[in-house]
């Protein structure tokens, strides 16, 4: 009996095991062979193995010549830095030459990979596989301070620099519905720069990854020059599309995408930004990279000028004179420069005290492997690898940063209420864009393309940026959240500072721009245009306005009251774009992207939207799986009730229910770089015509009067009793008594 039973059991176990193994094998095979083509079919784009013309095999002679060249260059730079310039040129040259050949200087300055490559016989740089040949694993220091070994490629592919979105928590962003984005326990959606609504770039990375634009610098009928444009110029995952695979709940990016990673743009000292342009091959459009041996031999840890190849774009801007990458636009298909700056706060030795002190980006943004911290205070929806790691002035400067001024105690006193940036960023670059009209482009004769019209740019306080309470949290459309610590509700930024431009100079400039635009777009009603640009709430119906008020009070007020708020400077920004009015709420409607070539070449902004909306991924966005997977939550955060409406806005080639609008409030972007050693003078804020709107910041009238009057601030209005007590008391140190 028992024998039969055990036999049966054994048999059953074997069957279960066999079945499980079969299922596993089928799943693995399906994932390996079925999932990738299905995924490609779904998003309408596919990847391919990439080749790069500049990835060439060097002969021994070529290698040695390059090595000698690089070594000499590195040794010269190091030696020249320590030989004074105040001597005869020949004397200096001789000293430099001597230094250059000392063993210690060679050891300290010669690129180390020359020897490594020489020994390993590496004569061609083949992308990540060359790097991973020696660096399959790396040491990373976690938040606990301990070093651990991680898989280099895996670590990189899961970093925000690669995937620029995350479906994990760690956002300091709150939806207009009052929910923290991807809070624990919520339905988590992939969000980040890959899909956030943003009016500055005017496009999604999905539809604007890599584009070749036919420009006509000699005039509308002149010869065509191809120009490169697209989000891929700054993102290291270099295939024919952004790494969308990472937005799925399962799956990894395929090999050919990993093989396209540009290690050298971050790690090489001699990376040639002239190699960074769009190329068209048999498969489609993609971004070229510098995969030369020259770049590969000069690798090392990421230094400031490496980071700034991309990040000066969003700080100083493309048109910033000290933007090095903007001086090397490409040996062909030159990249299009964006004239209006996103922030206008450059990080460079010329304009930032930390850069001048050779402090490295990674000194403050201390990485954990390839994951970098952004700081705990993010106003926008940019994903953060290390949300718990602090990046702040205080880490180095403590709470008593001022040691030089006779007023140092009082200056330190301000730290409790003011961020360092409030005083130490005095102006932004002039080209800082505040109001950008995407709907009415302007012909740029020099570049030979139509560009969005920046109807107002300014770097001045009160105009290009303003001062707001900030507790480290932001709204879904990048509005700084915070409140006056006095706890009143007099501070009301989403109905005041962020929705009204009241400065007469700014309004006059907007009007002048509108008049100029009207010459090309006769349908523009100047007064209506100025009103919408300077009072975007005027675009809302009374019902939506009422709903907005209620949502601010119910959903955002509690978030504004969190933590300790301080006054920070915020760059202001608004854009007019086409919106899907079927998905509108009190804070805005879903922005539709532009197709770059159509936009730049024809200046027909509507046609550019039509073309972009035709993109397969946008079609998918208006289908049910996408709605359920993320768009319902996305819209709830956006402040749009009733979920994502899947009415595809393109019917028979015509846009339906699509209107041009300004976003209903200005976005506020944090500015943390471009720090000046010398801060503001007291009177810049504490004066009748000071730059700080104390009333708007929620201070009561008597306090506002006091704060605007330096004399009152410097002299205590003591009452008679106080005076009397003072008069009667002899000043005898050591024996204090109280007069009765």
């Amino acid at each position, binding site marked *: 009996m028992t024998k039969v039973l055990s036999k049966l059991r054994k048999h059953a176990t074997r069957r279960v095991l066999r079945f499980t193994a079969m299922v596993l094998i089928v799943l693995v095979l399906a994932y390996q062979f079925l999932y990738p083509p299905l995924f490609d079919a779904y998003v309408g784009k596919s990847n391919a193995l990439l080749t790069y013309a500049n990835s060439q095999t060097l002969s021994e002679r070529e290698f040695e010549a390059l090595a000698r060249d690089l070594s000499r260059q590195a040794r010269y730079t190091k030696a020249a830095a320590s030989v004074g310039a105040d001597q005869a040129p020949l004397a200096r040259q001789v000293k430099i030459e001597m230094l250059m050949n000392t063993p210690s200087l060679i050891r300290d300055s010669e690129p180390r990979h020359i020897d490594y490559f020489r020994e390993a016989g590496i004569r061609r740089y083949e992308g990540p596989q060359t790097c991973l040949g020696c660096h399959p694993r790396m040491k990373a220091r976690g938040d606990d301070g301990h070093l651990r070994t991680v898989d280099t490629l895996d670590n990189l592919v899961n970093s925000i620099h690669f995937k620029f979105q995350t479906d994990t928590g760690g956002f300091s962003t709150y939806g207009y519905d009052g929910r923290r984005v991807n809070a624990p326990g919520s339905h988590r959606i992939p969000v980040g720069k890959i899909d956030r609504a943003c009016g500055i770039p005017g496009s999604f990375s999905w539809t604007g990854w890599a584009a070749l634009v036919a420009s006509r610098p000699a005039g509308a009928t002149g010869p065509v020059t191809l120009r490169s444009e697209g989000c891929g110029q700054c993102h290291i995952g270099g295939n024919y599309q952004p790494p969308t695979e990472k937005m799925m709940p399962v799956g990894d990016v395929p090999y050919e995408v990993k093989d396209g990673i540009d290690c050298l743009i971050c790690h090489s000292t001699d990376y040639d930004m002239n190699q960074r342009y769009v190329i068209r091959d048999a498969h489609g459009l993609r971004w070229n990279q510098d995969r030369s041996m020259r770049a590969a031999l000069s690798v090392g840890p990421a230094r400031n000028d490496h980071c700034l190849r991309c990040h000066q774009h969003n700080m100083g801007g493309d048109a910033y004179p000290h933007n090095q990458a903007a001086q090397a636009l490409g040996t062909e298909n030159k990249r299009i420069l964006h004239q209006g700056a996103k922030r206008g706060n450059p990080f460079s030795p010329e304009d930032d005290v930390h850069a001048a002190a050779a402090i490295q980006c990674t000194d403050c943004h201390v990485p954990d492997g390839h994951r970098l911290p952004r700081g705990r205070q993010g106003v926008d929806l940019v994903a953060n690898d290390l949300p718990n790691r602090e990046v702040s002035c205080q880490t180095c400067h403590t709470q008593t940063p001022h040691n030089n001024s006779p007023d*140092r105690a009082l200056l330190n006193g301000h730290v409790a209420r003011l961020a360092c940036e409030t005083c130490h960023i005095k102006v932004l670059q002039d080209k800082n864009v505040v109001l950008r009209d995407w709907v009415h482009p302007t012909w740029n004769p020099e570049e030979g393309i139509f560009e969005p019209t920046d109807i107002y740019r300014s770097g001045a306080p009160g105009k290009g940026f303003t001062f707001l309470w900030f507790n480290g949290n932001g709204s879904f459309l990048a509005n700084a959240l915070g409140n006056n610590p006095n706890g009143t509700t007099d501070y009301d930024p989403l109905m005041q500072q962020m929705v009204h431009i009241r400065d007469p100079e700014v309004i006059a400039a907007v009007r002048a721009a509108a008049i100029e635009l009207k010459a090309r777009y006769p349908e523009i009603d100047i007064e209506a245009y100025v009103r919408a640009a300077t009072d975007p709430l005027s675009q809302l119906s009374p019902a939506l306005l009422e709903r907005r008020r209620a949502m601010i009070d119910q959903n955002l007020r509690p978030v504004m009251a969190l933590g300790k708020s301080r006054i920070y400077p915020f760059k202001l920004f608004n854009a007019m774009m086409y919106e899907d009015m079927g998905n509108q709420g009190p804070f805005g409607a879903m922005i539709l992207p532009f197709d770059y070539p159509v936009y730049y070449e024809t200046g027909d902004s509507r046609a550019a939207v039509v073309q972009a909306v035709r993109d397969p991924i946008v079609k998918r966005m208006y289908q049910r799986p996408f709605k359920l997977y993320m768009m319902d939550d996305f819209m709830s955060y956006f402040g749009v009730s009733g979920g994502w409406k899947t009415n595809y806005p393109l019917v028979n080639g015509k846009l339906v229910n699509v209107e041009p609008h300004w976003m209903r409030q200005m976005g506020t972007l944090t500015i943390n770089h471009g720090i000046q050693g010398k801060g503001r003078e007291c009177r810049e804020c504490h004066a009748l015509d000071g730059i700080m709107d104390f009333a708007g910041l929620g201070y009561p009238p008597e306090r506002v009067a006091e704060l605007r009057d330096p004399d009152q601030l410097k002299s205590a209005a003591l009452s008679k009793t106080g005076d009397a007590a003072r008069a009667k008391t002899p000043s005898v140190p*050591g024996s204090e008594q109280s007069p009765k």
Partner: protein
Amino acid sequence: MSAKSPGPRRRRRLAAVTSLIMAVLLCTLGAAAASADPPADNRACLRCHGMATLAYRDGITGNLIDLSIDPGRLAGSVHGKVACVKCHAQGYRDYPHPQDARREQLDCVGCHREAHERISYPFEAIAGQFAKSIHATGDDPKLRGFGCHSCHDPHAFRVSTVGKPLGEIVMDDNAVCLSCHAQVTDPLSDRHRWLPKREAHWAAVRCIECHTPIAVGGDGAQRVSHQILAGKESNSTCVNCHSGSQRLLSRLYAYRSQEDLARDGLFGKAVFNEAYVVGLSRSPLIDRLSLAFIGVTALGLMAHGLGRYLAYRRSRGKQP
């Protein structure tokens, strides 16, 4: 120990501790500091000194000079009703304050000596003890200017902190010492290395329990002397605390002991005595386990005796 949740029990204990401390000390506070709201003039001073980060680093020593006064803590302190200018009466009207005003030296005794109607706390005795303290007699240049306010913040001083567990009182008290003697807790330092379970001691015992003379002085109101002893003169004899004549129980823990009595009664305290003095664990769990072990042993013994008795009877019954 009862099965009650720790919350209400702790609260009761706190209430008891608080009331006891208040009864012993706080009741002696004079009437002068009572009634009336904070003086209106204080607002003018707090406009700057209420800034939480009003501070600077001394240009010579690099030490942090904290000039900020927490308005909330000031209002809740024993001096909360006193106008700033009553003590600081030397021309602070304008900013920047004149140099001679900044040189003023204030101490507790100067104000409290003559004002007995205000408080009958033995300030004179304290002054005498302090004069013998290492802080007054030491020749370290860092001790220059050491006074009452080096430890006791007159703008936040409260006789006892209402509603605090003893552990927190210990921590707060020690924080005063550690604000200068931070090197004591340096994990790489050898100081106090001789002390068994160093961290446990620091968490449960105030620095001053060992670093003051055992005999406080004649006045019963004072449980701890202000004569701080140098390291080598301080108590390092374990049995001063861990013995029948527990030194600690006459100090801060006196309140705990009395409160235990009030809560558990004499018998309960005798059985569940959590005192650390005779080597008990202070862990309720281990206390209970030991009791259970004793109980089980007793039961085992009884069962054994009963078994033997029954076996004896059976064997007797079998015999003819």
